């Protein structure tokens, strides 16, 4: 029984890691930037959702608003900031770490703005769904309706992205623009605009992650930082280029963490994450699903 309980917990947290990893992969594919600001974008969207529930007392209204806000935020960060950065910083020793630094700066900036508006104290973003686990007979599994929402939301996002990427012209343009930007441009794709859509998708995915995971804990300006780290580890494990890899990386990490938590102890989980990551990368330096002959960014 404990085994199944642990597995369920792992799937639920793995689903969230997958969403975060997906957001990072979407931005990486289109811009070659690891977007550390993703945590603060997601948290800001969640704060917007929180504000809406406070006004309307309805979680189901706040959810789509938060997602739309997340998409708008992602797209405006690309327009106002990353576009300019990519033009400005091209060479010199800083070129390689400039995007990392810039997004870390954005992370800090958004978090302090959130702190200035809402304060740094813990808030409770409540949902109508129960946080108590389902009961079968006399056994209560640690899997609540809220966990079910988390898994369903992740699955829905994956299906939507999957359909968009596989079956629409937009998806084809997105894949082309990330695979070979110059050639895609020659073929008439507006790479800049497509890139922006990638950022919007990423912002929306992050907002979903924030809005469904936060009710299970508390909301504070840096409450999603650890989620970002897990998501990043999952994305790197899956090979930063691959959407499927991000999802599988997230699930592997979530289930792995749950079992380590259950059978080894709570404080070594992230260290175990480090060792899992190192082993995966030493065997496949570009991740599980990354292209071995990736282009030189």
């Amino acid at each position, binding site marked *: 029984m404990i085994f199944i309980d642990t597995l369920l917990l792992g799937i639920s947290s793995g689903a969230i890691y997958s969403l975060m990893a997906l957001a990072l992969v979407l931005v990486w594919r289109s811009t070659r930037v690891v977007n550390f600001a993703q945590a603060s974008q997601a948290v800001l969207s969640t704060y917007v959702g929180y504000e809406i529930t406070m006004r309307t007392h309805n979680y189901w209204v706040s959810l789509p608003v938060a997602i739309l806000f997340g998409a708008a935020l992602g797209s405006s960060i690309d327009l106002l900031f990353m576009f300019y*950065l990519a033009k400005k910083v091209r060479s010199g020793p800083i070129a*390689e770490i400039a995007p990392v630094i810039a997004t870390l700066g954005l992370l800090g900036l958004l978090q302090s703005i959130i702190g200035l508006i809402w304060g740094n104290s813990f808030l409770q973003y409540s949902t109508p769904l129960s946080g108590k686990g389902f009961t079968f007979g006399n056994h209560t599994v640690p899997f609540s309706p809220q966990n079910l929402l988390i898994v369903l939301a992740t699955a829905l996002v994956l299906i939507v992205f999957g359909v968009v990427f596989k079956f629409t012209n937009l998806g084809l343009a997105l894949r082309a623009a990330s695979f070979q930007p110059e050639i895609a441009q020659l073929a008439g794709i507006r790479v800049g605009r497509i890139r922006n859509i990638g950022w919007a998708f990423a912002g929306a995915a992050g907002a979903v992650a924030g809005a469904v995971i936060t009710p299970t804990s508390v909301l504070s300006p840096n409450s999603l930082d650890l989620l970002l780290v897990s998501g990043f*580890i999952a994305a*790197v494990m899956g090979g930063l280029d691959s959407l499927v890899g991000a999802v599988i990386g997230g699930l592997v990490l979530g289930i792995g963490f749950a079992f380590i938590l259950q059978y080894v102890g709570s404080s070594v989980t992230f260290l175990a994450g480090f060792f899992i990551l190192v082993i995966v990368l030493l065997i496949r330096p570009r991740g599980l699903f990354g292209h071995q002959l990736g282009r030189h960014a």
Partner: protein
Amino acid sequence: MLKRRHSPLQRGGFLLVCGVVLLVASNFVDELRSYQGAQVAVYLVAISSIILLTGYSGQISLGHGAIMAIGSYAAALAFTLWNFSFEFAILFGMLVGTLAGFILGVAAARLSGPYLAGTTLALAVGLPSIADQFKVLGGEQGLNFDIGDPPGWIKKFEGSDFTQYKWFFWLMAIVALFVIWAITNLLQSSYGRNWRAARNNPVAASLAGINVVRGKVLAFTVSSALASLAGALFGILLGIVTPSAFPLALSFTILTGAVLAGVGNLAGSIAGAVVLVAIPEFSGALATHLGSSQKLTANLPGLVTSLLLIFVVLFKPEGLLQKNRAKSIKQLNS
């Protein structure tokens, strides 16, 4: 005075003069400034480790806080458990940190950009929690690393009012100046040249007979030695070594310092270190000026740091102090 045209001896002389000026100046400042001076020295060592790694060898580490923690814990263990004198405790911390850096560096040499960033990030988040696993590391309470009063000969020489923080400042300023002298020479030796060559064009470098992988491992190892030295000094300055002294934010802070300095510019690291220490003080004063509400005092330092970071990346990518360097780099690259 740290330019390429000067010989190691000339640079040594210049830094010696700097050192004497600093030590004399320490007599005219109060306790807080001495403490901040020591803090600047510690950041200086940490920032130079990042500059060496990122600016010269082209590797990214988001986990140097963890390597600082390794150095700090090893030194504190040697000091409290095995009763090493503090000098040897620092050296022992450096030794352990260097070893850890070598192992990490072997793994790091296989990884590029974001993959390396992700691995080191995981290390920075995961490592401090080890302290809870082993009793000998003292859990959340941490390890005592109080090296006590200044030694007797200094008191005899400088008078009995020679305070502890002034002693820390002397110790750390001297170490930091020595580190700068050593790294400037290293970076201008054939090692530094090979690192730059391998960073700018790995294929061309290996065709010219440079062992790129070995260079990367070596750079990571040397950088880790410096980071663990900074960690050991940081432990001494705090008097106690705890897991919470080495949060993820520390790794980001020293990276910030390196960017403010201009990642390819060792002389700028002094400016970077000073700014890192000055930001909390400056934003504290600003918060009081604006009417110190809880929200303001808690978030202003972060706001100032982030704005400064973004400003530097966008408008002064060669560091705060540099002028027209971008042009000369462009010429070099073309």
